[in-house]
């Protein structure tokens, strides 16, 4: 007598969870779109001020494209390795999820290390954010992206702890999905940064 009732409840519960995860992922997508508008404002500011170097160094004098290419590759490899996190998650391989999350984290950390090294060298050379309007806009735009990546790294550590302690439960999977959207989104913003700030600054 009890079994048909149970059978009816379980799919309903799964459908309810699927709905909840779908709504959450869409809500997070809307947040990403608002973040995109924030970056659009920073890109517009940079585009207006990119030639206002106040007699200070311009992009051609400051940017090292080999360095930027290395940063770009680190972020791209980390985007691909986060894809492997999602594939491992769907197969339910907890160990592989943790492993690829760690790889993604280290690649992202390498990106941040290179960026901080670049900022540090620029500030030491007297090309800090206070030198010119161009450099203020540069540090604001690139720094905002770097801050996003740093928060993504913290989120990744939290997710590694959650996957380790809670396992791949539905809420943990939903968070991993949102983090994947966040991480791929930051790589997309970086395409705009390296094209408009670095490549067009040197060309």
């Amino acid at each position: 007598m009890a079994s048909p009732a149970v059978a009816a409840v379980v799919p309903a519960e799964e459908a309810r969870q699927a709905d909840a995860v779908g709504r959450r992922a869409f809500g997070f997508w809307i947040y990403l779109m608002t973040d995109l508008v924030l970056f659009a404002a920073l890109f517009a500011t940079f585009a207006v001020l990119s030639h206002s170097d106040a007699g200070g160094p311009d992009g051609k004098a400051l940017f090292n494209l080999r360095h930027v290419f290395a940063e770009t590759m680190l972020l791209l490899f980390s985007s691909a390795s986060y894809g492997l996190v999602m594939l491992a998650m769907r197969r339910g391989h907890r160990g592989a999820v943790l492993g690829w999350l760690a790889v993604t984290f280290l690649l992202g950390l390498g990106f941040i290390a290179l960026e901080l090294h670049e900022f540090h060298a620029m500030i030491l050379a007297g090309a800090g954010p206070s030198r010119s309007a161009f450099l203020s806009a540069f540090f604001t735009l690139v720094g905002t992206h770097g801050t996003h990546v740093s928060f993504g790294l913290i989120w990744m550590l939290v997710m590694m702890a959650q996957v380790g302690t809670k396992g791949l439960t539905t809420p943990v999977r939903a968070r991993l999905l949102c983090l994947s959207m966040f991480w791929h989104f930051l790589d997309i913003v970086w395409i705009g940064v390296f094209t408009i700030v670095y490549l067009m600054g040197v060309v």
Partner: protein
Amino acid sequence: MASTPLESTGAGRGSLRRYATGFILSVALTAIAFALVMYGPLSRTATVAAILAAAVVQIMVHLHYFLHLDASSRARWNVLALLFALLIMVLVVGGTLWIMAHLQYRLG
């Protein structure tokens, strides 16, 4: 299986082949853009046009292969939200550049 909830959202899809294709295309487009600027085989205008085109194509590659956006009904609301954000971005960036360039012309 417990993976079913994620199948209902566009971003939960993807296969190894899909990620690998997106990754290889992205590496190629990035390498082309950097090589054009670093070795400068084209004129300045042609280089700027080429790197902007490479960036637009690479953004579409990322959206399709990494974020799994397409015209399917599962991703339709995500695409609509993205198109709306793009409209706002065009207004913000285009409007800013237009107004500031005009102002500079008037003041100069």
